[in-house]
C-alpha cells in the first residue's frame, strides 16, 4: 500500500483550517441514560489523540457525540467554533465507526461510490482510494461476500474519499492483519501532520506507537488528558535481550528471552546498559516491559 496519502495530481493537504474541537461539560448517552458525564477538553493541535478506556467506559459514545450523531443532554461540542450539528461542522469531520458501516446489496466500488455521492466526492476519488488501500481486486465483489477484515479496509477507504480537518476513528485497525494495520497506522500518522485525529484502540502498543496525546475515559468521565510521554507506569521494568548469556545477568529475573530489572525510572537506563556492556554483555535489545498506558485500564 502506498503510504502517501494523497495521490499525485491531487492538491496537497492544506493546513488545518482553523478546526478545533471544544467539548464543554458534555453529558451524553442513549435514551436518557447517561454514559458520558461532564466531559470537557479542547483539541486544537494537529496530532493523534488516542482515546483509551475499558469496555463500556464511553469511548464510542464520545466519538458519536463528537461526530454530531448523539446530541448531548448537557454541554456542547463545537467544531471550528460552531455547533457540531451544523453542516459546516459536519463537513470538517470524518467519522469511522467501530462497525464497518458498509451497505449490503452493493459491490465494493458501488459502496464507495454511494459514500462518494453522500460526501460530494468524485469518481476519481473512488479510483484513488481503491489503489491507495489496495482493494481494487475486491471492487467487483459484493460487500456481503467480504471477510470482516476486507470490509474494514473498504470502510477505511471511505474515510479517505475526501480530505477533512478532523478524523474520528473508532478502533480503525480492529480485525485487520498486522501488515494492513501497520499500513493504516502509517496513513494515519501522515494525516496527523496537519489534521486532528482521534483514535481509539484496545492495542496499547499500537496506541503508544501512534499517539502523541492520550484521553483516558473511565466510567464516562475524562480521567486523563496528557501527552503520552508524560504518563509513567507505577514501576519501571526494563527488559534486556542479549546475543549470548552472561554471568553479569545472574541476578536478573527472566521472562521469555528477556532479563528483567526494575529501576526507579527511565533515567537510570543508560547507566545500567553502560554498566552491563562494560562487563561484556552483548545487548541485542532493551525495552520497557510494562506499557504505561495499561494503568489507564485499571
Amino acid at each position, binding site marked *: 500500500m502506498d503510504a502517501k496519502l494523497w495521490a499525485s495530481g491531487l492538491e496537497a493537504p492544506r493546513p488545518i483550517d482553523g478546526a478545533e474541537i471544544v467539548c464543554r461539560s458534555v453529558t451524553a448517552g442513549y435514551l436518557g441514560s447517561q454514559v458520558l458525564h461532564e466531559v470537557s477538553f479542547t483539541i486544537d493541535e494537529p496530532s493523534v489523540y488516542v482515546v483509551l478506556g475499558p469496555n463500556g467506559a464511553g469511548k464510542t459514545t464520545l466519538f*458519536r457525540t463528537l461526530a454530531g450523531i448523539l446530541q448531548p443532554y448537557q454541554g456542547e461540542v463545537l467544531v471550528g467554533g460552531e455547533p457540531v450539528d451544523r*453542516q459546516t461542522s*459536519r463537513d470538517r469531520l470524518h467519522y469511522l465507526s467501530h462497525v464497518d*458501516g458498509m451497505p449490503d446489496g452493493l459491490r465494493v466500488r458501488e459502496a464507495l461510490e454511494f459514500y462518494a455521492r*453522500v460526501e460530494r466526492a468524485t469518481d476519481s476519488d473512488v479510483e484513488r482510494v481503491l489503489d491507495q488501500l489496495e482493494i481494487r481486486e475486491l471492487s467487483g465483489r459484493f460487500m456481503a461476500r467480504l471477510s470482516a477484515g476486507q470490509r474494514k479496509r473498504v470502510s477505511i477507504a471511505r474515510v479517505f474519499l475526501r480530505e477533512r480537518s478532523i478524523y474520528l476513528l473508532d478502533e480503525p485497525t480492529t480485525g485487520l492483519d498486522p501488515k494492513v494495520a501497520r499500513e493504516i497506522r502509517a496513513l494515519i500518522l501522515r494525516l496527523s501532520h496537519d489534521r486532528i485525529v482521534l483514535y481509539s484502540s484496545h492495542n496499547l502498543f499500537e496506541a503508544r506507537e501512534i499517539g502523541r496525546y492520550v484521553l483516558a475515559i473511565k466510567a464516562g468521565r475524562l480521567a486523563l488528558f496528557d501527552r503520552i510521554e508524560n504518563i509513567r507506569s507505577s514501576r519501571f521494568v526494563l527488559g534486556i535481550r542479549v546475543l549470548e548469556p552472561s554471568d553479569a545477568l545472574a541476578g536478573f529475573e527472566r521472562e521469555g528471552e528477556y532479563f528483567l530489572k526494575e529501576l526507579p525510572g527511565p533515567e537510570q537506563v543508560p547507566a545500567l546498559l553502560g554498566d552491563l556492556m562494560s562487563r561484556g554483555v552483548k545487548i541485542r535489545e532493551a525495552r520497557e516491559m510494562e506499557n504505561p498506558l495499561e494503568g489507564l485500564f485499571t
Partner: protein
Amino acid sequence: MTSSSSSEGPLSLLRITVRRATVSGRFFLVYGTGISVLLGVTLAAFSGSNSFPSAFPLFLPIFGVVGSMGGLVVFSNDRTKGVLEYLIAYGVSPRRLFANVLITSLVLASIVVSVAIGVGVGVYVAKGHGVSSYLALALGIYAIPMTLASAAFAATVGVYWTALSSPRQGLNSPIGLVPFVGILPALATLGTLVGLGLSGKSSTEVFLIVLGTAFGLIAIVVLVLLGMIGRLLRRERLLSPA
C-alpha cells in the same frame, strides 16, 4: 440530507436506495410480482369474463405490500450495519432516511402493480375481453391507490417498528411481520365494502366514500408519523449496537 448538501446528493441517495432495495429485497419483489402475475394470468386465461375484473384488483394491494418490503430490508440492514449512523454523521436527517424508505417502498409497489396489471390485463384482452369501465374503475381508484397506500402504511409502521425494537432477523422480525400489518388497511377496506354490499348498501357513492375515508386515514397516519419522527424516533434508535 440537509439543504447545504449538493443537489445531486438526495437524489443519488434515493436512487441508490431503490437499487439496493431491488437487490436486498429481491425475494419479496419477485414473490410479490410473481404471485400477482400468476394470479392475473390464471384469472384472465382460465376463468370467466367476470372473475378477472372482480377478483384481480382486490388482491393486488396484498402482493404490492409484499413486493415493497425491500425498502424496509435496506433500512433494517443499514441500521444494524451502522450505515444510518454514517449518514447521520454526514448530515442526513432521520426524516430524510424515513422518506427514503417510504419512497423506495412506493417505487417497489409500483413495479409490482405495473407488471401485474400489464401482464394480467394484457392476457385478459388477448383472450378477447374488453376493458370494462368497472375494471378500469376497480384498478384506477382501488387497486393502484390502495396498493400504494398500503405500501406507505407498511413502510411507516415498519420503520418505527424496526427502530423501536432490538435488531433481530427471521419471521419474528419486523420485516417478517410487517407484510401482515401492511395489508390490514386493504383488508379492512375490502371487508367494509363487502359488508356494505351484503347489507344492500352498495353504490358508487358509498364505494367512493369508503375508499376516500380509507385513503384519508392512511395518509393521516403516514404524515403524522413522518412529522413526528424527530420526536418519536430519536437518533439513538437508528444506531448500530455499541
